[in-house]
């Protein structure tokens, strides 16, 4: 099929950036979205144009490197997929596809579609862990965990830190990301000891890093490629009230 791409091009942090239109012919429906961009880049290189910069690594939806804003939605029209898992079969011949980086104050654009998500690392650094040194752990089965809780903790723990939730949110809030980590650790007996302090520190840090507030619109949950649920935010709120 033949498609038209409107891609955000921005040389560096300082550059203002603009959309550039590219016609791309002979796109296969078997390509993934990123393979389509690879294909575009090979063409641009042949024509002595600058290829489009975008991040990716695992290309199977687990590393969280790749998220893009596609036709006004994070990761495009398919549900529960990362950008690297998006298939070109969801588009039709003649389609125009708009491709943008994440837009959020906390994630400045570095170049083209590449953004700086260090703010997520800063959040985890602030307290997204259990403070146990290597060697200090007790025998693993001495801490039984209700299967139900372990399963819920896993469901929260599968967050890939891609930033979709922030990109989807009109307030650019990081609540889903933070609540997933808070939930995972708060659901486990190992994590309870520091639960109060953890939630306090992380909520404070979120504000400091320039993320917006949560106004419960739920678009983060709707767009999350890993199906992280809003109940985690409810759990964070509960933990937060308990912490004061």
């Amino acid at each position: 099929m033949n498609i038209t791409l409107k891609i955000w091009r921005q040389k560096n942090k300082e550059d203002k950036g603009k959309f550039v239109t590219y016609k791309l012919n002979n796109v296969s429906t078997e390509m993934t979205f990123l393979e389509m961009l690879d294909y575009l880049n090979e063409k641009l290189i042949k024509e002595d144009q600058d290829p489009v910069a975008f991040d990716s690594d695992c290309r199977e939806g687990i590393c969280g490197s790749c998220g893009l804003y596609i036709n006004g939605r994070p990761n495009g029209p398919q549900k529960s997929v990362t950008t690297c898992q998006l298939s070109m079969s969801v588009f039709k011949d003649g389609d125009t596809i708009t491709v943008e980086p994440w837009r959020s104050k906390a994630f400045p654009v570095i170049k083209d579609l590449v953004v700086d998500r260090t703010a997520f690392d800063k959040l985890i650094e602030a307290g997204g862990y259990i403070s146990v040194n290597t060697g200090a752990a007790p025998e693993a089965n001495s801490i039984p965990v209700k299967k139900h809780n372990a399963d819920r903790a896993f469901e929260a723990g599968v967050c890939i830190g891609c930033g979709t939730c922030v990109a989807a949110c009109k307030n650019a809030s990081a609540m889903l990301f933070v609540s997933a980590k808070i939930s995972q650790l708060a659901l486990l007996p190992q994590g309870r000891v520091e639960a109060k302090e953890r939630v306090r520190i992380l909520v404070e840090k979120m504000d400091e890093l320039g993320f917006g507030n949560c106004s419960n619109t739920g678009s983060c949950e709707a767009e999350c490629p890993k199906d992280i649920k809003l109940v985690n935010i409810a759990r964070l709120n509960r933990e937060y009230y308990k912490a004061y």
Partner: protein
Amino acid sequence: MAKLDSKIPDGPLAEKWTRHQASVKLVNPANKKKLDIIVVGAGAAGASAAATLAELGYNLKVFVFQDSSRRAHSIASQGGINATKNYKNDADSDYRLFYDMIKGGDFRAREANVYRAAEVSNKIIDQYVAQGVPFAREYSGYLANRSFGGVQVSRTFYAQGQTGQQCTLAAYQALSRQIKAGKAKMFARRDMLDIVVIDGKARGIITRDLITGEIERHSAHAVVLATGGFGTVYYLSTLAVNSNGSAAFAAYKKGAFMANPSMAQIHPTSIPVLNEYQSKLTLMSESLRNDGRVWVPKQKGDKRPANEIKEEERDYYLERKYPAFGNLVPRDVASRAAKERCDEGYGVGETGLSVYLDFRDAINNQGKNAIKAKYGTLFDLYKKVTGINPYEEPMRIYPASHYTMGGLWVDYNLMTTIPGLYAIGEANFSDHGANRLGASSLMQCSGDGYFILPVTIGDYLADEIKTPRISTDTPEFDEAEKAVKEKLNKLMSVKGTQSPTSFHKRLGHILWTYSGMKRNEEGLTTALKEINELKEEFWRDVKVAGELNELNHELEKAARVADFLDLAKLIVMDALNRKESCGAHFREEYQTAEGEPKRDDENYSYVAAWEYTGEDSEPKLHKEELKFEYVTPVQRSYK
């Protein structure tokens, strides 16, 4: 060059590590504060090492090429991590895991290292659980286990199909805590391009800031490489697309020996190549072989849909050929068997290059929910990639490049042949011989990082406490920086017509054809010739778009492909040298009557460690003889 000294401690196998720990030199806490350590790479190995070393009091500088260390390739590992807890009471023990790994590796690994890996395995699980890894549990609240290929006990701990993600994040969080404490500093989006050696010791690295393009110098008292494997040399692989061999290769060129580079694992259960644009292959975890049955039609070229092929028309060839282990034979065996069936014309799918992995019986026996609980994430992943629902139709799978058993040669202390330069995790060669067993890499990476390196590096650093902070203003740093800049400039200035990726694809094709699951003298010789030609063409006609001083993925790729071309040559030379078959290294000239690998213990019971001797001269082979004091090498049998 002196003989390779593996520094294996004296004493009985099960006591070596304990004795060693009791005898290594120590650095007191006050002195640790004065010592800097660079760790390149922060996957399961690097992050666990950096976190632990920082907890001990050293100053850590950590480098990764991704934007965050949470994205290291380890995040993608799926099926599980082994330990000898024996929670299942199925007679597991350190010795049994040790034996399984030695046998699984076809008697080409070092006994003492492998035993130690088994010995520290339980502490890893304790550590991860304490850090909050949500491993699968029974209704009782206790930890669950499953079995993995090549073994007959259930010793694998898992978190659905995302065990690596959970373990890597735990290590990442532990490292984050040290960053907050000011004991570790993270340098993300950096490519390490060279190692700096001063007076024979590793003292620093040269990096490129991937955003600004700036070439930087970083120094330390010791350098640790945790840069992962180079299975991407085959282009299509189950690894993350940016995984590479450049850091290890830079170390090799600076004097670190490269061990068994041709020992590459081709994993049996990947989603097959679906089209020519494909940029990577998606793994379907080996854990699926616990419940999935592998088969092809009994009739050649049978194109009917799988569900129309009746039970008696199916050839469950693994169960037929290997009744004792069935679908759970080790990876090398399963991969070769799939290739053999497909080469004979029994393969399925449009290209005939795939076999079925079928869950029909498991779903009938255990119910859909039970299967979903075990493999839900993997089934979803399969459906996303192929559009086929594996609850209703069998999966189609084919072998793919997955893991490198070979890597930088290290002694028992995990030190390379350059004093002060260590290699941990997949980047080293140490524990898996000629074939790795499932769920044993996360175990080795975590063991190296949490429990082994933090002890052994002290033995070296104890003699460095009087060495002041290393200056980066030395002739050695000047020279290394100059060499890096020259290489990058050279790449930019070729201004040819073909992209780095197009060369990578062609290199991958050469290796896959001649140095993949089956190899022979003639093919390998052809490969060598074709790689030389491709290298010549690369340096004459590569086109690197963009500029030096900006974010430039094309330049990053070009530098990696340049190294892959040299590394590929070394891989093929190693495969040519080893005139025997063992594990994943299958030389067609050396096989038993049943088509199994035929080892030559008399002549090849050694680790092949290659020394770089210059751009235009052949590498020099050093042999570390493998001594088997506790197991007797036998012909592997899974029948």
